[in-house]
């Protein structure tokens, strides 16, 4: 998908540098503790992939192994068709953007960006031309002579980004690059990073623990937990067809409604929730009678007249968050309220009796003891 506005100034010269990356059977243990466990994935050229997980999930270790800063116990890393598994970081030719920017304090902005180009033996004029090009692309014209410490955090990270992409690395790795910035700046830079990545066709591997950020940026997201990839899919698939309860919870803070699998029809599985309601869900292979949890995202639930929904409850809380309202509805006999997200215009009143509706395609079942 190309940007509608077309390439930015000089983008043409930098475009199309992204290569594919494949990782297979990557494993790393620290003192007997498994940090990354047999991770395998194929990343296409020009794709934006995010490793999403909480701390200790192995996402950063995986990135560091791809970069070459951490040596894997086993496994193979290939950039394009080239096996780089045992190469030193400087021989891999990848780009890396660090959370702490790590600009060279003794060099100016322009010198920082020129550094990787000089290493590649480009002529002075050529270096100056390309540095000017990326500075312009990042909206940093006129900042070339400044020192990194004279720039704001957001500007510094833009410079770091320029420095990582100016030499057209086949893959750019980013380790929580926006983690140190405030929310507003983060949103702005997310948009910029995404735009540049699309225009230049960069292959980017991005590490974050912020699921919203992952959803905004990524073509595909690898949700990681305990050194394993739970699911590697497009944001939409992760949302609509979470393969594990963890994914459903991590990506949208799903409601988990405990119940018992009652029946299978041709199209749906029927679940009797513990507080009595009957809900239709996407088919699940478990036999009737098993304990299950029905997961449904707060944004995929709707309100209706009390008798029309799969269950009825009382509105307990109504919280406005910008254009959305968060609503808590407690069905009679339920331990905790069910969370909904509705457009602000459709807000119910506290104490109102309402019915809940859900498309069966949005309700995913997980066996009760199912870990993964």
């Amino acid at each position, binding site marked *: 998908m190309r940007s509608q506005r077309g390439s930015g100034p000089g983008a043409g010269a930098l475009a199309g540098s992204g290569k594919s990356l494949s990782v297979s059977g990557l494993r790393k243990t620290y003192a007997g503790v498994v940090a990354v466990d047999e991770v395998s994935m194929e990343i296409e050229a020009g794709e934006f992939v995010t490793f999403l997980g909480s701390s200790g999930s192995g996402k950063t270790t995986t990135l560091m192994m791809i*970069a*070459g*800063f951490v040596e894997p116990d086993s496994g193979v890393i290939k950039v394009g068709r080239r096996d780089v598994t045992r190469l*030193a*970081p*400087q*021989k891999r*030719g*990848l*780009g*890396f953007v*660090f959370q*702490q920017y*790590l600009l*060279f*304090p*003794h*060099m*100016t902005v*322009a*010198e920082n960006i020129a*550094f*990787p180009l000089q*290493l*590649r033996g480009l002529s002075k004029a050529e270096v100056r031309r390309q540095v000017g090009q990326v500075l312009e692309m990042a909206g940093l014209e006129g900042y070339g*002579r*400044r*020192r990194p410490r004279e720039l704001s955090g957001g500007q510094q990270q833009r410079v770091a980004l320029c*420095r*990582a992409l100016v*030499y057209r690395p086949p893959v750019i790795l980013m380790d929580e690059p926006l983690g140190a910035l405030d929310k507003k700046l983060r949103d702005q830079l997310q948009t910029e990073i995404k735009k540049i990545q699309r225009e230049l066709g960069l292959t980017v591997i991005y590490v974050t623990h912020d699921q919203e950020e992952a959803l905004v940026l990524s073509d595909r997201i690898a949700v990681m937990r305990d050194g394993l990839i739970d699911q590697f899919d497009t944001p939409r698939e992760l949302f609509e067809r979470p393969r594990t309860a963890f994914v459903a919870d991590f990506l949208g803070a799903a409601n988990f409604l405990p119940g018992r699998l009652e029946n299978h029809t041709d199209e749906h599985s029927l679940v009797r929730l513990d507080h009595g309601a009957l809900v239709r869900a996407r088919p699940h292979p478990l036999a009737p009678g098993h304990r299950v949890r029905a997961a449904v995202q707060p944004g995929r639930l709707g309100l209706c007249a009390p008798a029309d929904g799969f269950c009825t409850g009382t509105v307990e809380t109504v919280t406005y968050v910008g254009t959305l309202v968060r609503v808590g509805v407690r069905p009679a006999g339920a331990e905790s309220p069910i969370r909904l997200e509705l457009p602000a215009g459709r807000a119910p009143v506290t104490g109102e009796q309402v019915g809940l509706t859900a498309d069966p395609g949005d309700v995913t079942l997980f066996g009760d003891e199912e870990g993964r």
Partner: protein
Amino acid sequence: MAGSVLAPVPASTAPAAKSRVRRSLRSRRTRSGLLNGAPIVVYMLVLFVYPILSTLFLSVKGVHGGLTLHWYADALSGANLAVLLTTLRISAETSLISVVIGFLLAYAVSRLRPLWAGLVMLIIVVPHFISALVRTYGWIILLGDHGVVNSVLVDLHVPGAPFQLLYNEIGVIIGTTSVMLPYTVLLLYAVMRGVDRRLLAAAASMGAGRLVMFRRVYLPLVAPGLVNATVLSFILCLGYYLTPALMGGARQTVVAALIDDEVMKQNQWNGAAALGVILLVLTFAGLSLLRLARAIGASARQRGAA
């Protein structure tokens, strides 16, 4: 130092300034400030300003009264000039060698884990607290013709052994370097600890090999420490007396030893004073050189930016 404390006392007789002083003196803060500052001002005047001024005066006082530059001419000619040049040479050699060794040592220590680094630093710094006299005699025992070093070299049948390691320039350099080393290591270690090693990782990610990383990232970041360490050990060496006197020969006479000789043996205070002032000027010159180096570094960076 004393000057800045005394500075508030105005030379001007302008009425405005006068009333400002009077108002300032009426304030409690000024008065208690003056009271608190007085002892140190007196102390500095008596023990620092007065001796320096009197030394300055001595160095230009003629034998029969009046002012003269005779003592300076004397200090800067003939054998005395040779001694001065020897002092500069030994100081330069010592500071260079101790910075190079100090760099390697400090780098090695900075790569150790904190516990080991602390331990090694202790080993490097502790000798500094032992009397220089004891250390110098230690070196004499080690480096003598029948000392440990030469015995080992002879036993190993190293051609040319035993070497003359004492009462020549080698002996002096070994001695003074060992004295200066703790300073350079401490200075460089502090700077090296402050270097963010992840900057090197960043350089590596862009394709920089070890040599480029060192030359373009590490060295520029520790350069201020290198300059400081070189100048500091040079200045400390200028006035150093003990080791050159005990471990050097006649050709390693330094200015400090010459001053000692003039005062203790010849009772020639004027000449000694002139030599002392010259050392003081050289020390200031060293410090100015340091500032100059910093200014050049800063302007080079400015130019690099342009």
